[in-house]
């Protein structure tokens, strides 16, 4: 996903010299073509995220379209006040890009897990929050945020995320993509758990349960219309995110539902239950441990629907020794 992002950004930057990429001394290998071929549009701010973010604002207020890029919480929480006061209050044209959303950096531990960022970024006025579900969505979202005149937070996975869309979907900021149709329940998912939600939906379909899957690549502004339509047309809404259940996608969807006159039969947030992801393992292992993978999603569906829909599902084999899929 990071490669899809960087390749797209490079193409955009070649066509628009206002686009500037500032990295916080991270991106080995990935940023090299940009750095070498567009040096006047590239800055390495060093290991100094507060300054990186202030710099970005100064450049944006001078007419640049600035992307800051780092991993995990470094471009957001480490410099949160610069993001709030400088980026958001000035409505500066700065896009904050975090690689390794959720637990993509698995075994590196909780310092490199990004599991409260959506809630925190979403709370900031003027901030658009996006988390693409696969490489195709990452390409589309990168173009969309570059065109958006204002602050954006782009939460990427890492690499090797499976392609869910066979071709580039029509993607607009603030609009969900319906990846699977169904009227028995709705899975609303953000980020690279999209593939797990789709796998869960496909397994449910084999049991005669038809789950709608909405890829909510924009968390703010939320596609309230798609949420309310799902609430009206399906009996159950389950949100799926590699993030705390507090304040993220699940919180955003719950806010919309509670303030509407639509009442779904059941609602559940799948995510980390107010805990640090402190077990040791790769992303697949951790997803399974915390119930975020397809099997975990099925277990939640089963508990909500009160049937044994998950009984015949084999848990995914994954562990610290598993190999990562090829880079996308």
């Amino acid at each position: 996903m990071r490669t899809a992002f960087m390749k797209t950004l490079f193409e955009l930057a070649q066509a628009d010299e206002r686009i500037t990429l500032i990295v916080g001394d991270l991106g080995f290998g990935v940023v090299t073509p940009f750095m070498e071929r567009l040096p006047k549009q590239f800055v390495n701010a060093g290991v100094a995220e507060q300054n990186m973010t202030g710099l970005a604002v100064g450049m944006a207020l001078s007419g640049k379209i600035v992307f800051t890029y780092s991993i995990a919480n470094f471009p957001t929480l480490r410099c949160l006040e610069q993001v709030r006061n400088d980026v958001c209050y000035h409505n500066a044209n700065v896009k904050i890009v975090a690689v390794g959303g959720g637990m993509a950096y698995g075994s590196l531990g909780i310092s490199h897990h990004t599991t409260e960022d959506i809630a925190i970024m979403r709370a900031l006025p003027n901030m658009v929050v996006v988390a693409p579900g696969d490489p195709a969505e990452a390409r589309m979202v990168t173009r969309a945020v570059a065109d958006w005149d204002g602050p954006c937070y782009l939460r990427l996975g890492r690499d090797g995320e499976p392609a869910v869309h066979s071709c580039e979907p029509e993607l607009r900021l603030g609009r969900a993509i319906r990846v699977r149709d169904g009227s028995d329940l709705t899975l609303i998912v953000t980020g690279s758990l999209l593939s797990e939600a789709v796998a869960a939906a496909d397994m449910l379909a084999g049991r005669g349960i038809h789950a709608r899957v909405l890829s909510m690549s924009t968390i703010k502004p939320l596609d309230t219309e798609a949420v309310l339509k799902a609430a009206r047309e399906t009996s159950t809404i389950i949100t799926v995110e590699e993030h705390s259940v507090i304040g993220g996608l699940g919180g955003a969807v719950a806010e919309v539902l509670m303030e509407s006159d639509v009442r779904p039969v059941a609602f559940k947030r799948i995510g980390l239950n107010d805990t640090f992801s402190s077990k040791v393992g790769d992303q697949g292992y951790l997803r399974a441990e915390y119930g975020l993978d397809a099997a975990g999603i099925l277990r939640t569906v089963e508990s909500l629907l009160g049937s044994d829909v998950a009984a015949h599902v084999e848990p995914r084999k994954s562990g610290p020794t598993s190999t990562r899929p090829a880079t996308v």
Partner: protein
Amino acid sequence: MAELLAVLYGKILRINPAHPDWPDRDRFVLSKGHGCAALYAVLAERGFFPLEWLDAFYQNGSRLPGHATHTYLPGVEVSTGSLGHGLSIACGMALAAKRDGKSYRVFTLLSDGECDEGSTWEAVLFASHHQLDNLIAIVDYNKIQSLGRVEEVINLEPFAEKWRSFGWAVREIDGHDVLEVEDTLIQVPFEAGRPSCVIAHTVKGKGVSFMEGKLLWHYRSPQGEEYEAALVELEAQG
């Protein structure tokens, strides 16, 4: 800091109050956002907005809050108030000017207290590495911060040496001597390829005998007889 702003806005900055967004203007970033009263006053004096607006400083429903805010005020480049933000933003403006081949300069005014902030030193490192000689940082070195004297809280000395060792061209001046301030700022950049630092030695509450060097007046506004007495002293000095 009033003298510093008066010289900047009266003699140094290339600005056009009728066109506050003129793309080639010099930029001024008040990093010590709590000093906004002086900034608002000098902007009003230069005609960026009506002088009457100043009467509503700090009042309910006014445009002038207690830390520098760009939202409703022409001429305020950047909103500040939390310390250690301004120099980074100024670096970004200076780097953009360099890359765009623009000749505008970027001036920023820091407090001594905000030189405790790590982010300030991130920016100090960055500016010299990128040879931002279109960037000028002025430090209002009044030697008092929120809870005491700078030397007692977190000593900054040897202060000028720190900036020099980080690659800046440094001058130390009397920040109350308007001729010296002007003579210094007119010479920027002090060295080609280096950002300029002006350490302006100042006295907090300068010109009012009962305020000078007193921490109390970081917090307190003169009222009634105090206000009248302060005005008498200041007016006597012309």
